[in-house]
Every structure is written in structure tokens, then in C-alpha cells.
């Protein structure tokens, strides 16, 4: 479905992504693990068209190249990103955020159905339709962000650290919601620090360190891999 081939990203002299290869299959949930600064966010941004990758590599989505496309075209192709920090329109209402979620042409057709689905997944959003998003709690804002991304009827949903800054209870709710999203058949590419929760959700995972993919495996394999824990807590060294 999605495949990245030799993708590199640099900010000035700093090489943030170093020839990354990665793939996501239809309907699959894939998690990218790694400590702070490993380059996970850059990877999602490169796919979403928010940062420009070096010309050497290629991003292919369902057989067509999406490298170098601007963000709004990537969305039309069927990939939606929930960025780190959520990127919602904090001054607009929940309703308006969802409305804009379906701004893409591809989303207009099944908008009603999608809205039902989203409100079904996040019943709280239905209650709070007229609330200004900026006044909501972090967990609720994250729901809005995911709901908004789903409104574009994506084939692949990308999430950048959705659990960031959320209280543990809320993180639990979040992952429950993601599991429900997963069941709808949407493929998910997830960047997370919450190793256990995300591995419980995912089919497969990649491990990143300083811009490189250093490990790859099924969720079960990664759960037992000491390298994962080392990457976060350095316990074993």
C-alpha cells in the first residue's frame, strides 16, 4: 500500500532521516518506535508532504508516486496525518473542525456516513459539537484531531505521538479508540513512545535510532525484544 524507499531528510547539515525503507500493507497497523530525536516525526512529515525529502528516494502509495506532492494533494491521495501537537483549529468549534476534515474532494461523497462513523467512534464529540476546541481537555482535543483526519475518508491514517502529554487514564481511552478505528479497516501508521500500548495495537513495528531503522518485526517479536526497552530506558546496558 505505502512504501518508502531510501528516504532521507536533512535540516541544514543535520541528517534527520537516513535512507529509510518502510512499508505498510492494506488494513495493517504499523508502529514506529524510538526515543526522542530518532527521526520518527520527520518520517511522517516527509510522507505527508510537510517536509521535502532528498531527491534520491521515493514514496509510493498504491502504486503511484507521491514524492514531492504538497500536503493537500497527499491528502487527496488517501493519507491523512494527525500531527504531533494535534494541529487542530483551536479557535473553531468541533463541528467546524469535522466539517473541514471533509474538505478534500475525495471525502465529499461519503461525508454523511463518515460523520456518523466518527461520532460513533467518539460519542463525546457529538455532545460537544458547538464547543471551541481550544477550551477542551487534551484527550478530547486528540479525539477531535483523529476524528477530523478520519473525515477525509483516508485509506491510511498517520498519527504522530497521539498520547503525548495525556494522563494515563486518557491514554487508555485513546488506544481503545484507535483499536475501534483499526477495526473499520483503515490502515494505521503510528509513531509512539508508549511502547506497550502501541505494540498491543499494532500488527508490525519498526524501531528507529538516530535517523535509521534499526529493527523491524511483528508486534509480538518486538514486545520481547530487549533492544526496544534499551532504546527508552537504557536498562540493560
Amino acid at each position, binding site marked *: 500500500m505505502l512504501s518508502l524507499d531510501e528516504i532521507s531528510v536533512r535540516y541544514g547539515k543535520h541528517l534527520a532521516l537516513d535512507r529509510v525503507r518502510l512499508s505498510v500493507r492494506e488494513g495493517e497497523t504499523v508502529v514506529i518506535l524510538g526515543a526522542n530525536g530518532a527521526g520518527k516525526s520527520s518520517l511522517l512529515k516527509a510522507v505527508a508532504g510537510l517536509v521535502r525529502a532528498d531527491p534520491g528516494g521515493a514514496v509510493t502509495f498504491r502504486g503511484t508516486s507521491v514524492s514531492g506532492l504538497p500536503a493537500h494533494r497527499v491528502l487527496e491521495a488517501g493519507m491523512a496525518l494527525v500531527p504531533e501537537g494535534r*494541529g487542530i483549529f483551536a479557535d473553531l468549534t468541533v463541528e467546524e473542525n469535522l466539517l473541514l476534515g471533509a474538505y478534500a*474532494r475525495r471525502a465529499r461523497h461519503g461525508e454523511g456516513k463518515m460523520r456518523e462513523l466518527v461520532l460513533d467512534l467518539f460519542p463525546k464529540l457529538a455532545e460537544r459539537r458547538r464547543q471551541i476546541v481550544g477550551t477542551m481537555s487534551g484527550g478530547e482535543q486528540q479525539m477531535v484531531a483523529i476524528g477530523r483526519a478520519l473525515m477525509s475518508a483516508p485509506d491510511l491514517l498517520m498519527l504522530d505521538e497521539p498520547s503525548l502529554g495525556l494522563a494515563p487514564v486518557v491514554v487508555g481511552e485513546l488506544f481503545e479508540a484507535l483499536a475501534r478505528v483499526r477495526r473499520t479497516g483503515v490502515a494505521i501508521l503510528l509513531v509512539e513512545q508508549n511502547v506497550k500500548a502501541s505494540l498491543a495495537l499494532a500488527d508490525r513495528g519498526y524501531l528507529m535510532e538516530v535517523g535509521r531503522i534499526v529493527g523491524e518485526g511483528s508486534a509480538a517479536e518486538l514486545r520481547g525484544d530487549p533492544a526496544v526497552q534499551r532504546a527508552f530506558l537504557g536498562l540493560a546496558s
Partner: protein
Amino acid sequence: MTLTTALIAGLVLGGTYALVAMGLTLQYGIARIMNLAYGDTIITAAFAAFILQGGLAVNPLLGLALVVPGGFLLSYLIYRLILSHLVARASDRGALEVDSILTTFGLLFVIQGVLLVLFGGNYTSYSFLNVAVDIMGAKVAANRLLALALALSIGLTLYLLLTRTRWGTALRAVAVAPQSAALVGIDVNRAAAFAFALGGGLAAAGGVVISMYQTFTATAGVVFTMKALIVVIMGGVGNLLGALCAGLLLGVVETLVSTYVDPGLTLAATYAIFLVVLLWRPQGLFGRVAR
């Protein structure tokens, strides 16, 4: 002069200010272009209305139907041909602000120069709808009332469009968070071009209406830019209703100062209020749409 008459006179005067300011608030709030040539768009439209009325005997109300799309198109072209390049190369909002101030300052001279060559530096005026309308005992000129009516109707229509439609919500989204707007599939550049053009159309509408009762010269654009800028900042950048309210408020304040204090201090009062608003609530009296 009773307080009621003063208030009505003030509101009618404020209608002109509001009408003129709404276009700029769109241009600055959504397209993020600080357009110093804004007033010259107004003057250009005023000259167009004058030509239509004097030379071709076209009723200025009809003229609106011609001049407003003209203003829209002209502004669209200006954005596409000139300003979009600045937007593309700007590293941050500050850089874009400086660049757009400088570029539109140049544009101001170009438009002014062209108008001077075409029409000379002379005072221009004609009269249309200069008949009295009685409102609660206050006599108001119909043409100024038209400005107020237009300001209110355009303001409310646009407000409804901006808040009730997807298209309008998208424009607001661009104003609030351009980065995120791209993530929901909005072509930010196109939205900005459209907002800029829309602002130009509004400026043209203002120009046509103003030409019905105000004397203008090819060089008078700066005055309108300044007034509009004050209203925009007072109302909150990008906030359409804010601009409407701030415009009306300014008209009322000027009239009250003129009535009860000293007509010599009206402009001083305008600037003083403006400065106080800036210091006390830099985000504008009615808040900003952007952040």
C-alpha cells in the same frame, strides 16, 4: 443636537469606515498580506465609478456590478503575479510582513502614478443619491446610508458565509493555522489568493460608494489605507464582525467628540483610541481570528 441624532450620524459615518475596512481585514487576516496599496484600490474603483457615471452615464449602483468584479480580478492577478512569490519565499510571518509592506508600498506608487497620468491630480467628485432620508428625526444622506447598508449587508453575508459554509470555514482555517489547513486538504495558496481578491472586491465596493459623496484625488489612497488599518487593528485582524463593529464605533466616537468636545480633536481622538486599544488589547477589541 440630541444624543440620538449624534448616534445616528455616527453610525452612518461609521458605515463608511466599516465598509472600507472589511476588505483589508480579509487581506491581512487570511492572505497575510499587509496591503499598503489598499486605499489606492479604493481610489481606482472611485475613478472607475466616476468614469462610468460621467462618461458612459451608468448608474453607480449598476457600476457596482461592474467595478466590484473588476476589483476582485485585479487583486487576484496582483496576488498571483506578484505577492504569491513573496509568500513562497518567506521563511516566517515576520519576513512576509516586511516584504509585503515594501512591495505593496511600491505598488501604491505604481497605481497612484497611473491614476495621475490618466486623471491628473485634480479633485474629482460627482453627486449621486444626495437626498435626505429621515431616521428618527435625524436627516441622513441616502448615499451614506447606502454605505452603511452595504457595510452591514456585506458584513453579515460574509460573516454567514465564513461561519456557515465549508468554504468559509476553510478560509478561517487558513487564517488561524495555515499549516494545519494544508493537512485537511486545503490549497492554502489558492485560498489566500481568493481571500486577497475578495478583499480587493470589497475595496472596490467601498470605492464606488464613497465616490458618490466624497471628493477624491489620485493621491488620496493613503488616507483610506490608514483609516482601514486602524479599524482592522481595533476590530482584531481577520475578524470581519470585529471590523464592522470597530468601524461603527469609530464613527460614533468621532461624531460624539465633534459634538461634545471639539471638532478639532476628532482625528486626534481617533488615533488616541487606536493607540490605547493597541496598548491595552493588542489583539483588538473583538479578538483575533488568527490565534
